[in-house]
């Protein structure tokens, strides 16, 4: 099991399109992927779009990615890179 802290870098936060992109990447791995708010107030299955949307993670929100499975290394790297790069959004801060 791997854990890593990530901060939402894109201006609009984890909005619908960004969330869809995240879910698509998460689904391309066999590992189970969870995202939690750092205060533990909310936890989401990163393979479910509604679950990710319910995190309501705005700009600057700190999250913990928890990945478990055979390809957890690749999965956590891909997800954290995606989030760090602003989830493919233009004009991020």
């Amino acid at each position: 099991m791997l854990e890593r802290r990530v901060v939402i870098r894109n201006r609009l936060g984890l909005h619908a399109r960004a969330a869809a992109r995240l879910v698509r990447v998460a689904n391309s791995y066999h590992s189970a992927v969870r995202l939690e708010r750092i205060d533990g107030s909310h936890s989401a299955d990163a393979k479910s779009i509604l679950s990710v949307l319910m995190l309501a993670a705005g700009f600057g929100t700190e999250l913990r990615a928890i990945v478990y499975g055979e390809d957890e290394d690749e999965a956590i790297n891909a997800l954290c890179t995606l989030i760090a790069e602003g989830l493919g959004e233009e004009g991020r801060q």
Partner: protein
Amino acid sequence: MSSNHKSAIANPESLMPDHPTITVGDFVACGPARLQLHVLAGADAAVARRITAARVHKLGLALAGFAHDIHTGRVQIVGQSEIAYLNQLSSERRREVLNSGALGQIACMLVTKSPALPPELAEWAERTGVPLLQTPLVSSLAITVTTEFLQETLAPRETRHGVLLELYGVGVLIEGRSGIGKSECALDLIVRGHRLVADDLVEVRRIAPDQLLGSAPELLSEHLELRGVGIINIRDLFGVSTISGPKNIDLSIKLERWDEVKEVDRLGIDELTAEILGVRVPHFLIPVGSGRNLATLVETAVRVHLSRARGNNAAQTFVARHTASLRAPDVEAESRRVNNSELEDDREETRR
């Protein structure tokens, strides 16, 4: 559309090209019964001469020497006024008028009502090989009936591999690889009270710039093939209310194997379209996997389509609500900051 329209397409040659044509002979034999067509002259030429354009034209000014609008392959309507005009000319002048210009390239002449025709007209028809037809209808009605028939018959067409069904009044074309379960899905939908237009092969015709009409090939209509059961007749087994005649295609659904789908739409905020014969049709791509009930999914997609057509996109509404909820904490934080600075201002004032 009535069944006699369909028989006009029975000519296999006209089925093949993207822009089909029809011979004048077929137009007389299989055209709309209402026209009560008969050939006055040029019957021999009618067998081979082709109508290539759906728009009919009234001869009018061409007889006065202004042949600007005469186009190859069209049906030319000759009404009371044209005949009256010809009749008041001298015989010599009539010949001159008929032989001048581009009249020889038209598909055929259609005389409306039954006026006394100048003999030069039939003479001209026999000599140039342009068939001269007649209908007892008045010009305006003859034009409407002829145009409607030709538009349907000459419409660009394509045969697609798929199933066409009617759900809640919506014509739904379901496509996907062979063996993905299109026919089984269709059967489920039929059992639920929806109607079959065509299974396996769907003949699509673009009958207007933005209108696609789908129908079953004559031989296949009412039939469906189920692996392991064979060819079944839907009307025999489920009743006459479960089959439908030709239907406009309003929605396209593609079934694709789950592991072959590159990108699944998880949100549904973008309304996808597919292109059929140059017409953009609303489209859903539905991945097929175990535990997915295709009939229910298709039924739901159609309901979503109906809802969107009335300006209601649930996904967009949901996303807007979600975006607003993401912004809300920012607004709160901002107002807190403003309040704090106001407090500080107050404090400063108190100190003074």
